[in-house]
């Protein structure tokens, strides 16, 4: 019965494999119950605020500062991760050295380690009496409880996004391209900077965008090391939590809406980069 109705609607191509209705039914109901209905609740509550109220909440000075700190530190951390992530991916793909397999596995640590654990560990290290903090203190550099601390935490959580996006694309590079460049007289540095890196640009951009998006929303690893000083080191997700604790739901909703709009714009950009890179290079980033 399902098959005949489906064919009439041209919703799906006929298939002998049973279970389409059940599988899609489970998928869609679960998706609606868990993700779409709760998220549309947020959209609905935002639109219920009305434009003037939303605008004044979104442009509140503390909110704007929190958003600026979140996006600024996430951008800086993603930039650091691009540099070191690409080096790390290159080393893991091209070189042999003892302990390589362990290093490769350790790259995923930020995916596996709960963010709160990372947060207190980084704070312990970078606090003025910590392992690294005590070395930097005499130089007048404060990391913990400053925006620099936020960047450190976001470098931690974002690193695997860059490495794991760039690494598989690097593995696909044809050695012949490099050989061709070398026979045409390019030095090794020229081959890498003019031939290999441009080809990796879409993957690197995707990794940057993923690390950036993750950094903007990150909460657990940041709140311990940030010091959470309003206007200085208070991130947007924390301000949402503070507004919730004050039962100021409209303000929490407005900040969340602004963050979601920017994140979805980022997601769209990532997808466009991927589509563009597939067209241009024949492999996805």
């Amino acid at each position, binding site marked *: 019965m399902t098959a005949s109705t489906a064919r009439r609607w041209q919703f799906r191509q006929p298939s002998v494999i049973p279970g389409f209705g059940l599988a899609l039914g489970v998928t869609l109901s679960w998706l609606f119950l868990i993700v779409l209905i709760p998220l549309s609740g947020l959209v609905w509550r935002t639109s219920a605020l009305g434009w003037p109220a939303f605008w004044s909440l979104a442009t509140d000075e503390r909110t704007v500062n929190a958003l600026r700190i979140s996006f600024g530190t996430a951008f800086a951390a993603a930039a650091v991760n691009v540099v070191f992530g690409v080096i790390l991916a290159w080393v893991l793909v091209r070189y042999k050295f003892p302990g390589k397999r362990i290093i490769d596995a350790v*790259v995923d640590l930020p995916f596996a380690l709960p963010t709160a654990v990372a947060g207190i560990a980084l704070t312990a290290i970078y606090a003025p009496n910590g392992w690294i903090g005590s070395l930097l203190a005499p130089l007048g550099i404060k990391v913990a409880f400053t925006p620099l601390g936020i960047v450190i935490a976001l470098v931690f959580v974002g690193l695997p996004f860059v490495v794991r996006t760039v690494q598989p694309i690097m593995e696909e590079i044809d*050695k012949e391209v490099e050989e061709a460049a070398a026979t045409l007289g390019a030095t090794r540095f020229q081959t890498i900077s003019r031939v290999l890196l441009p080809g990796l640009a879409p993957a690197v951009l995707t990794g940057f965008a993923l690390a950036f998006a993750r950094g903007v929303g990150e909460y657990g690893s940041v709140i311990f090391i940030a010091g959470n000083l309003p206007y200085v080191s208070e991130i947007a997700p924390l301000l949402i939590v503070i507004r919730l604790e004050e039962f100021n739901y409209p303000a929490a909703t407005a900040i969340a809406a602004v963050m979601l709009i920017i994140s979805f714009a980022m997601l769209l950009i990532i997808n466009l980069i991927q589509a563009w890179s597939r067209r241009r290079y024949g492999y996805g980033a």
Partner: protein
Amino acid sequence: MALDTSAHEVHHHTSETVRTATTESRIARYGLIAIALCFIGLFLLLPLAAVFTEAFRNGPGEFVTVLQDPETFSAIRLTLIVAGISVPLNLVFGVAAAWAIAKYEFKGKAFLTTLIDLPFSVSPVISGLVFVLLFGSHSVLGPWLQSHGIQILFAVPGIVLATVFVTFPFVARELIPLMQEQGTADEEAALSLGASGWQTFWYVTLPNIKWGLLYGVLLCNARAMGEFGAVSVVSGHIRGLTNTMPLQVEILYNEYSFVAAFAVATLLALLALVTLVLKSLLELKFSAQIAASRRH
């Protein structure tokens, strides 16, 4: 050297001995390896070491004592309960979603795949916030829930919902590329030989995807047990009742019970290490079944 074979051999050993036009100089190689190792050591291994050092700061005796706190026990219990409910739920969903997306051609498939990934691009705090807006006392559902004595927020159901939300895509996004790569030929063969739909799933599809499935479950579980932001927003932090392990770490830390906080953190760090070891083993042994999805 003039022989093809020996030239071939030299080419294979270039990284140790001879430099060719497609390798970097020895200094550049060692320099890059050193930078990579320093970065990993500084940003990843040092924090891991700090967790264990801080937990054992006052010796193993105190480590054991602080872990015997009944509140910590109930936090461990709650974390296991929440992961025990949300991981199987997302496992069933993930298999169903991958079956629908990988085995059939239908309209709006790409859009559906994007929607499944949606929770990954939402901040954990916002993932918690949406459930506060849905079930809180100011919401549409709030008064009705209250009058019927149903507690969702600041109770276990809310924590489970938030955890299911943040771990939603893990199993599905692991299985979809794998099952797409495997195609439908095996299932069609089984069906043509007279197997029923469920028999085909249990005896043909499931054995094909079991390692990829385990891989997805592993990552899903690690996130479910370690989730902090989303759970923090919906839990209400009621001691001994709605605190999961990551929340217990935060509470102890904010009370300056550093050794206790890091002791609970070691348990979570061990979970992370076990996850990484199992993940690497799966990648090593069953790369064919996982390779498809390693490209995020």
